[in-house]
């Protein structure tokens, strides 16, 4: 096993330098190009930054973005991807947590980057990938960090109203992909179809599996996901064999009737994750592609993408409850129960429900610059009194079925999964309260229709509230149903009566 991602970059450039690693969006680069571009980026970063510092990267959906990420890593630093399509206010929050001294932006997003940069120095992607290479400097930087040094920081919704930066090491990424590839066995003949935006955790599979296995990745244009004919054509023209998609992304072509007029011909394995998939749409995929292996994955960003998997055996029906399965290699799962009165933890008896906890070498390092948030969920294994051992509390509930597989039972708290994204309803409320004239509010989720609700008391009309949300928050955090009330209902203790609000959502 490699110990850092740059071992992969060097090895694959030596082994198969002329072969394509990434293509799509009108461009294509080889493993050799990736080595060269990333060495050039690393040279610039190394000249401007100490090791183990964040570098913000705002470079859009193109084949050069992974070269920027890996260049940052080769300089011994870690990359913080920025989605230029996020509203300005959200990016300001993310920059506020990150406080990078360096940023890489492409020409297309340069103005957005400049508006955020402050004192931060910006390199233009198109220049920095073709800049001078100082081989000795890059080699020295690669030698100066270890496998537990941070590799990237990816942001996720935070219940306090500020997004949290999940910091992950080289070792965690390599461990996860090693575990995944024991199940899907990629080789040089495989072609991966990338759906996830490159700034999301899910894209680590599509970017790094080629380096590990010699496969290559085709990036599919975002607009094609709403247009199933075009999507399937792209999958077939590129002879794509592997999809590692979000469950929400996989549902889209089935929802839009994509299989009525065609189907993907070359796929052998589909891995999905991010939320509980709808059986109705999974069945459409299964019935149309009977020879394909479907794998359900589960796991939070804090456990490096996914920690458990289940290879689906049968075509699902409406009543099927899909397990999330068993732990990948390099992960262990515990189910713990918390006694609130004594603040003590215990293992749950066989078959009972408990909080899913993860341990092993693939846990994230923690939340960047947030010790308080980190300590709440990364803690000493309460069952181990003998030596230090960290576990991560996912906040998800699960039980082990009679078949020995792990089953998922939703959240302990008010976090939801919406359009494949993790969303804290408390963060939606915290934002709504910053809109002038809103005095009180509560956010609820209609799981059946996939609608986020916002109930509120105050002056502004619902339409004005949508416009505010659209201006400041990512699209997946904009409530679809906004309900103005004269007064919010309250419980005798003064808290908002959530049950009463839930009754207003159509059954």
């Amino acid at each position, binding site marked *: 096993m490699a110990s850092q991602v740059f071992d992969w970059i060097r090895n694959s450039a030596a082994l198969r330098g002329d072969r394509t690693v990434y293509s799509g969006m009108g461009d294509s680069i080889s493993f050799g190009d990736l080595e060269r571009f990333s060495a050039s980026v690393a040279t610039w970063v190394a000249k401007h930054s100490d090791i183990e510092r964040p570098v913000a990267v705002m470079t859009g959906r193109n084949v050069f973005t992974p070269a920027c990420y890996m260049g940052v890593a080769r300089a011994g630093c870690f990359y913080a991807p920025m989605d230029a399509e996020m509203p300005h206010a959200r990016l300001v929050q993310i920059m506020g947590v990150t406080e990078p001294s360096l940023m890489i932006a492409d020409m297309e997003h340069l103005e957005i980057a400049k508006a955020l940069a402050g004192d931060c120095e910006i390199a233009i992607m198109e220049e920095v990938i073709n800049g001078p290479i100082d081989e000795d400097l890059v080699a020295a930087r690669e030698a100066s960090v270890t496998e537990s040094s941070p590799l990237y920081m990816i942001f996720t919704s935070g219940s306090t109203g500020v997004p949290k930066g999940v910091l992950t090491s080289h070792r965690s990424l390599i461990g996860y992909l090693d575990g995944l590839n024991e199940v899907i066995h990629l080789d040089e003949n495989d072609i991966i179809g990338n759906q996830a935006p490159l700034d999301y955790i899910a894209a680590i599979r599509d970017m790094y599996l080629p380096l590990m296995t010699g496969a290559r990745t085709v990036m599919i244009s975002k607009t094609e996901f*709403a*247009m*199933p004919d075009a999507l399937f054509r792209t999958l077939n023209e590129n002879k794509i064999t592997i999809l590692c998609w979000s469950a929400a992304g996989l549902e*889209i072509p089935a929802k839009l*009737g*994509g299989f009525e007029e065609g189907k993907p011909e070359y796929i052998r394995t589909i891995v999905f994750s991010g939320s509980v998939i709808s059986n109705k749409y999974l069945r459409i995929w299964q019935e149309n592609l009977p020879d394909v292996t479907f794998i359900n994955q589960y796991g939070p960003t804090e456990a490096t993408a996914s920690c458990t998997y289940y290879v689906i055996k049968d075509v699902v029906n409406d009543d099927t409850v899909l397990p999330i399965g068993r732990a990948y290699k390099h992960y262990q799962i515990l189910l713990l129960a918390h006694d609130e009165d004594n603040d003590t933890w215990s293992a749950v008896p066989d078959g009972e429900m408990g909080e899913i906890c993860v341990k092993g070498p693939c846990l994230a390092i923690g939340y960047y610059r947030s010790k308080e948030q980190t300590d709440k969920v990364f803690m000493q294994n309460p069952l181990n009194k003998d030596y230090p051992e960290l576990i991560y509390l996912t906040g998800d509930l699960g039980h082990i079925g009679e078949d020995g597989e792990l089953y998922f039972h939703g959240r302990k708290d008010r976090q939801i999964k919406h*359009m494949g994204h993790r969303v804290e309803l408390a963060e939606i409320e915290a934002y709504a309260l910053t809109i002038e004239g809103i005095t009180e509010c509560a956010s609820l989720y209609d799981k059946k229709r996939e609608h986020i609700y916002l109930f509120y008391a105050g002056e502004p009309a619902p339409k004005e509230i949508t*416009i505010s949300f659209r*201006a400041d928050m990512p699209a997946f955090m904009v409530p679809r149903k906004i309900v103005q009330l004269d007064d919010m209902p309250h419980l005798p203790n003064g808290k908002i009566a959530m049950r009463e609000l839930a009754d207003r959502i159509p059954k």
Partner: protein
Amino acid sequence: MEELLEILSDLRPDVDFENETKLVTDGILDSFDIISLVSTLNDEFDITIRPANLVPDNFNSAEAMLELIEKLQDEE
């Protein structure tokens, strides 16, 4: 047209549907918007939008959507 504009503005009050002509091509409407839009249009106008109709040209502007709706209504 008015009914369509009302549906569109309920879906995305932040978008200027009367003037935008690259709603899909420029990524103003994402795939989740298209899914809700297709099911609303099917219900409200009593049509069936097929996968073959799901091309950017049919959804890039309110006018194009109206043409598609009228075409599908004529077919039924």
